[in-house]
């Protein structure tokens, strides 16, 4: 297990490759369940031996599973820094998980849909990540994995408090449902802050593309439930779903209004961004996301027809530094990254005129 299989690294997860319901606005849907094993202190207070026991028990339980296909266990300590970043940038684990890799194992399925973080803040964080707007299926799949694991593991559960977690903000269902939304329209008309702060007041958490504190690069926002106790898993998920639907509707209305009222300006913006992306020789990851956001919007609205919509979404991830290095097959210094990034973008956008170099 010293090195990750390179094909596996290069393969894009299910949620990046595929589209689905409302994929003009929604990028992915995720359900995460926090679970702990009975009788063992939570990871931050457990001895090394106990953490090792947790790992062995979870691995054993995951091995028993056949219905969901094969799981790949990855010992974080044995991965290179770039391999760790790939896992984070594919959203298969949290940035915190790889920052402190000791005795932490990530278990991932072949499709890269289900992943289990072992010994993060809780013993298990079971995550299901699906493309587009699919919280229902994500919840169903999470429940299947949870039930399956529970056949072989005894979870720390209390009749009154539900699933017990290290942090009291996760207790009860241990469920965090989140949806990643691409909101260029709301951002363009300067409404996104207003909408998102309104959500914060009704118990919805909003974050940028790469977690808390990060900017919403590429106009991508992640929204999730705050409350985990006192409502059922279905209620929590339904609630988030209906809020998402409203945000999706607002985003669509604004896109339509923009198209109607300032078509030329919008076309100009989209086409300029496409122009830079298809001609640039050096480009940073930040500028890439910014421009790709315009191009994705243009593709959704039919302003740009020469590129496939899913291909634009894929580019948002392929151009992340860690994934880029995996595709190129070597570690790159920053200026090389900008060079190869520009090259990969030109190739994938099919800008044939730009040969040479």
């Amino acid at each position, binding site marked *: 297990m010293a090195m990750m299989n390179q094909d596996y690294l290069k393969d894009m997860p299910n949620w990046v490759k595929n589209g689905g319901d409302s994929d003009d606005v929604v990028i992915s849907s995720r359900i995460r369940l926090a679970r*702990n094993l*009975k009788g*063992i*202190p*939570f990871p*931050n*207070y457990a*001895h*090394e031996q106990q953490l090792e026991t947790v790992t062995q028990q979870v691995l054993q339980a995951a091995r028993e599973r056949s219905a969901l296909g094969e799981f790949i266990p990855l010992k974080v300590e044995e991965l290179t820094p770039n391999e760790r970043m790939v896992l984070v940038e594919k959203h298969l684990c949290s940035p*915190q998980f790889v*920052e*402190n890799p*000791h005795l932490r194992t990530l278990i991932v399925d072949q499709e890269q849909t289900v992943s289990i973080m072992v010994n*993060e*803040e809780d013993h298990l964080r079971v995550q299901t990540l699906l493309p587009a707007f699919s919280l229902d299926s994500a919840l169903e799949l999470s*429940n299947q994995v*949870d*039930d399956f694991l*529970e*056949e072989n593991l*005894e*979870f*720390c*559960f*209390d*009749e*009154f*408090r*539900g*699933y*017990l*977690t*290290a*942090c*009291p*903000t*996760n*207790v*009860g*269902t241990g*469920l965090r449902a989140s949806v990643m939304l691409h909101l260029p329209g709301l951002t363009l008309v300067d409404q996104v802050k207003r909408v998102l702060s309104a959500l*914060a*007041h009704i*118990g919805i*958490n*909003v974050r940028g593309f790469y*977690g*808390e504190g990060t900017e919403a690069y590429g106009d991508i926002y992640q929204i999730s439930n*705050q*409350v*985990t*106790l*006192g*409502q*059922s*898993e279905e209620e*929590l998920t339904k609630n988030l779903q209906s809020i998402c639907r409203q945000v999706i509707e607002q985003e669509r209305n604004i896109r339509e209004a923009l198209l109607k009222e300032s078509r030329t300006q919008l076309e100009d913006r989209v086409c300029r961004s496409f122009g830079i992306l298809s001609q640039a020789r050096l480009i940073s990851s930040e500028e890439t996301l910014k421009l790709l956001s315009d191009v994705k919007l243009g593709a959704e609205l039919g302003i740009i027809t020469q590129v496939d919509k899913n291909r634009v979404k894929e580019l948002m991830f392929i151009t992340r530094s860690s994934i880029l290095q995996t595709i190129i097959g070597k570690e790159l210094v920053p200026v090389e990254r900008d060079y190869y990034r520009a090259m990969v973008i030109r190739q994938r956008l099919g800008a044939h005129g730009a040969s040479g170099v």
Partner: protein
Amino acid sequence: MHLTKVINHQKTELHLCEICAKEAGSELGLIFESSFSFQNLIAGLLEGDTGHSQQPSIAGHEIQCQNCGLTFTDFRRGGLLGCGECYRYFQQGLEPLLKKVHGSIRHTGKVPRRNGGKIRIRKEIDDLRNRLQESIRREDYEKAAYFRDEIKRRENELAGG
């Protein structure tokens, strides 16, 4: 804000909980500044309307989890509980926090399939009792009889093991 804790000679970054704190905080409409810390939030949440923090203690001795050894002060400092038993030992101190974060202190969601057997049956009985009341209210006595029998069946199941 990064909290660093040394456990078993292993440096552990506890900034994870700042995330949870932020999640909890944004629900409460708090504004986050760079000086924000998780302890402030926990401490703030634990302060009642009187402004005095409720530190549960018995006869002057601070409450400690008898299973993992964590004290309530430890919890306030780090923001993380040590084990499942902490929920029992710190019940009094945790309840106001749970209420503020979740608006509820009672789990009504999923029950583990295999190990939650009795709990699940009790939950089903609760649910059936509500439906029984509802059908009596609607004067649907046929349904009421059905629910009554179902409750009996489950009560037997509980008693039988």
